[in-house]
């Protein structure tokens, strides 16, 4: 399905609504070019999870952990050149845990993503405005059926 966000705020709101619905163990793959608003999306998502810490990009740390309604593992694998590098930090232990995991640039480590996951791809549409975004949402696994309820 496809959601239209007319502004940065709407991208954040979509993230927040998703954050209120996710369950323990969910894995969310977040893709989109540089500057499409992935981190904004995660900020909203964290708010939905009732996380009070401010969210910073884990580009250099690879993963940041937060505690809210559920534990959140926020990955950014942009700098990773080989999936093995991510495996070596104990990736499986993070994603197959009771925490929620959100992975920016998940396409770089496709082979490590579990079959059942929620995929969110944010696309810029410059001709419709600087902050206009199409948010493509797909998933495998009934556990993610809740995304159908989300509207902005």
């Amino acid at each position, binding site marked *: 399905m496809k959601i239209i966000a007319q502004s940065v705020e709407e991208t954040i709101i979509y993230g927040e609504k998703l954050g209120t619905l996710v369950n323990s163990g969910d894995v969310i793959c977040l893709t989109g070019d540089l500057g499409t608003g992935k981190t904004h999306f995660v900020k909203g998502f964290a708010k939905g999870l009732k996380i009070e810490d401010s969210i910073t990009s884990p580009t250099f740390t690879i993963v940041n952990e937060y505690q809210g309604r559920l534990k959140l593992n926020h990955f950014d694998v942009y700098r990773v050149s080989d999936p093995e590098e991510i495996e*070596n930090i*104990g990736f*499986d*232990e993070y994603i*197959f845990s009771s925490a929620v995991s959100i992975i920016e640039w998940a396409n770089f480590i496709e*082979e490590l993503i579990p*079959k059942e996951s929620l995929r969110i791809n944010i696309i810029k549409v410059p001709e419709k405005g600087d902050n206009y975004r199409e948010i493509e949402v797909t998933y495998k696994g009934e556990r993610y059926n809740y995304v159908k309820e989300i509207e902005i």
Partner: protein
Amino acid sequence: MIVLSIDSATESASCAVLDDDKLLGEIIFNYKKQHSVILMTMVEELLKNVALTINDIDGFVVSKGPGSFTGLRIGIATVKGLSQGTGKPFLGVSSLDALAYNMAFTSGIVCPILDALRGNVYTALYKFEGATLVRKSDYLVISIEELIALLKKQNEPCTFIGDAVHIFKDALTDSIGNVKFAPVHLDLVRASALGELGKASLALGEHDDINTFAPLYLRKCQAEREYEKKMSLLKDE
């Protein structure tokens, strides 16, 4: 010789103190991995309750793996620090050896299985020859199906033990005849078993090197993973 042993290879964390004749004390927690928070306080509490200080310890034993990447690093970093600080030797012992040792004198194959996620287990096959635990295979990380195929070839009674037992019990019971499962209280890697195994070697002067010792991480190689990915894609189509 007084030995302090530490295991944090899996979900559980434990530490134990053994002397030449007995186990003086052991603490085990098996509740949400939180090794980096609890491990040192456990060691402190244990030593206090057996009226020892860290300087009374003659050697350290640590789980070298396989197991949780993060857990292994925490345990090994801790023991390296203790070893360096006290100037006493340390030795790594396999978590699988320690698990198998829990089933002393079992006849047939003893097969420890630790959850390696994605349907895989860390495992090895063991037998007791008299009082001696003998490993009969390499340390492996394989899918449960591969393990079942391997054990069917052995055609011997088999006893399973470890934290993956509760996940695969039904699959193992259904596909292999003559299986037994360890009682639940033995399913953890216990620091006391590690200590017992390591103590003999330490007493002989064997030890590991603080600068070169690394955890035994077992992983499927890249080629295997790519092959499996291809096969699972074919299955999906």
